[in-house]
């Protein structure tokens, strides 16, 4: 009874949160729970899901050669470079920009942020002519001109080069929301801390960065890290878009997200696709946990 009257007392709060909570539950929470549920079934989209226990996961980690040989190692390589690499680049750029004075700062920040606006379909269109495999491709043309290469390189269709192109393009567009958060964080560090630091014997900018700036903006750095992880793992289509082939040539750009779509929307083995998504969700959760333990500001 006491709880009920308490709930009733806050009825307006519940009304306020209702629209979001309903959408949030329907389109994010329930799908994640459903994905976990489906991952233990055989489901082809037509018949009812049939419970098959851990078989999907067993197949995934022991027999799915495409997954083990390409998707897993490609995603690992892609994520390790694009995730921490893009994050470090965002932070470094944000720090450099914060040291600019006057009106220039705004425009430099804008220039860094603009590429992230092209994420998705526009990115393909921008990069295809630049990376085109014939001599008309801008990169090929330039490199031929300065005699760096002898024959045009197939930047997006050669299996040896596709992954590098994917990484380069993704890094280029990685100064997004996380970058803005970190820039704002650096700009808002309390000025008196720097003055105090100077008195305490901080000699150069790097000491200042390490002992004052970073500890003061841990919360923004954590937000940036979470955003970096999300962007890294959701990027999947880029290999297909750049190379124009699905699956990518010799699976060179095959990421876990592609593997999910492959099973979910092409082979209609949705139970198995769900198992792969659950695996990816666990990986993302692990990466986030790691960031939380690195940047947690609660225990200090």
């Amino acid at each position, binding site marked *: 009874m006491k709880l009920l009257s308490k709930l009733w007392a806050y009825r307006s709060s519940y009304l*306020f949160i209702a629209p979001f909570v309903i959408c949030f539950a329907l389109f*994010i929470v329930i799908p994640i729970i459903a994905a976990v549920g489906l991952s233990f079934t055989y489901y082809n989209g037509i018949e009812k899901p049939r419970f098959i226990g851990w078989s999907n996961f067993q197949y995934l980690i022991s027999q799915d050669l495409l997954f083990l040989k390409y998707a897993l190692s490609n995603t690992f390589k892609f994520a390790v470079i694009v995730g921490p690499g893009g994050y470090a680049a965002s932070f470094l750029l944000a720090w*450099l920009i914060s040291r600019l004075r006057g009106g220039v700062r705004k425009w430099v920040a804008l220039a860094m942020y603009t590429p992230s606006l*092209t994420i998705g379909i526009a990115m393909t269109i921008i990069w295809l002519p630049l990376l085109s495999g014939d001599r008309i491709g*801008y990169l090929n043309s330039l490199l031929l001109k300065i005699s760096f290469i002898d024959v045009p390189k197939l930047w997006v269709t050669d299996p040896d080069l596709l992954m590098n192109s994917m990484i380069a393009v993704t890094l*280029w567009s990685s100064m997004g929301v996380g970058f803005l958060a970190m820039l704002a964080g650096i700009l808002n560090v309390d000025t008196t801390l720097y003055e105090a630091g*100077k008195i305490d014997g901080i000699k150069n900018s790097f000491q200042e960065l390490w002992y004052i700036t970073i500890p003061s903006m841990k919360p923004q*750095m954590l937000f940036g890290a*979470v955003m970096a992880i*999300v962007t890294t793992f959701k990027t999947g289509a880029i290999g297909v878009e750049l190379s124009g082939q699905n699956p990518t040539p010799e699976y060179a750009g095959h990421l876990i997200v592609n593997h999910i779509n492959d099973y979910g929307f092409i082979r209609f083995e949705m139970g198995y696709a769900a198992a792969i998504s659950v695996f990816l969700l666990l990986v993302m959760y692990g990466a986030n946990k790691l960031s939380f333990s690195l940047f947690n500001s609660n225990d200090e």
Partner: protein
Amino acid sequence: MQRRCNPLKPSGLAVKFGFNAIMIVLSLLMILPIIYIFNHAFKPYHELFIYPPRFFVQEPNVQNFVELFWVTANSIVPASRYLFNSVLISVLSVIGVTLVSALCAYPLSKHPFPGRNLLFATIILMLMFTPEIIQIPRYLVVSNLGIMNTYWGHLLPVLAAPVGVFLLKQFIDQIPDALIEASKIDGANEVITFLRVIIPMCMPAIATVAILAFQNSWGNVETSALFMQDDEMKNFPFFLSTLTNNLANNVARQGAAAVAALIMLVPNLIIFIILQSKVISTMAHSGIK
């Protein structure tokens, strides 16, 4: 934006100038592909195919714009219909996302209702995941709701924007409780307080959430590809993806595609330039503590 006086100023004017110059060159390198796409969109045919390729357009014209809209003018669904869908959906979703997120963020920040911590923890948890990974169950939800092939199918899935609620909640945390108390003493109820105190105080955060919602919905291919069967219900980015499917290693239609890329990019860019300072001031409160 709080400007701090840097205690470790580079000693000479030359150093400062050099640093600025390096940063400007770096920025130009970053936006090189963007400058390029602007040029590409205005190139006439003979310049698109020229060898060696030229970066800058020599004789700009609007032939590519004409081509993009004429190429589909005679088909059942013209490009303008996709564009109309995109504009409508984006406008509705910007209004919807900001309203729904603000409504949720206010109690989440100021009312100690039972379940608040659980909800906030769930939102933080879901920040970590991304809808791209759970497309199949999302598809099942949408088809069971019976909103396939309707504008609701475009709109409702994007209304659940944990990042928006999170940013607004962190921003509302900064608003002193005294202001809300004062409004209540003056006899305002929750709705009036929300409209008269909370909304005006967190305009920067609302602007930020609106920008993110616009970016998200303007470039969204997922809802069109999965939840819409009829072509006249699909949006502009989806149309683009059909246009560019065979574009890889192919020069034909590059001009039209460049125009389309501009249409995708320019609205985002303009809105961001206008609201940049508001975004930065919101992001200062974005930290996860």
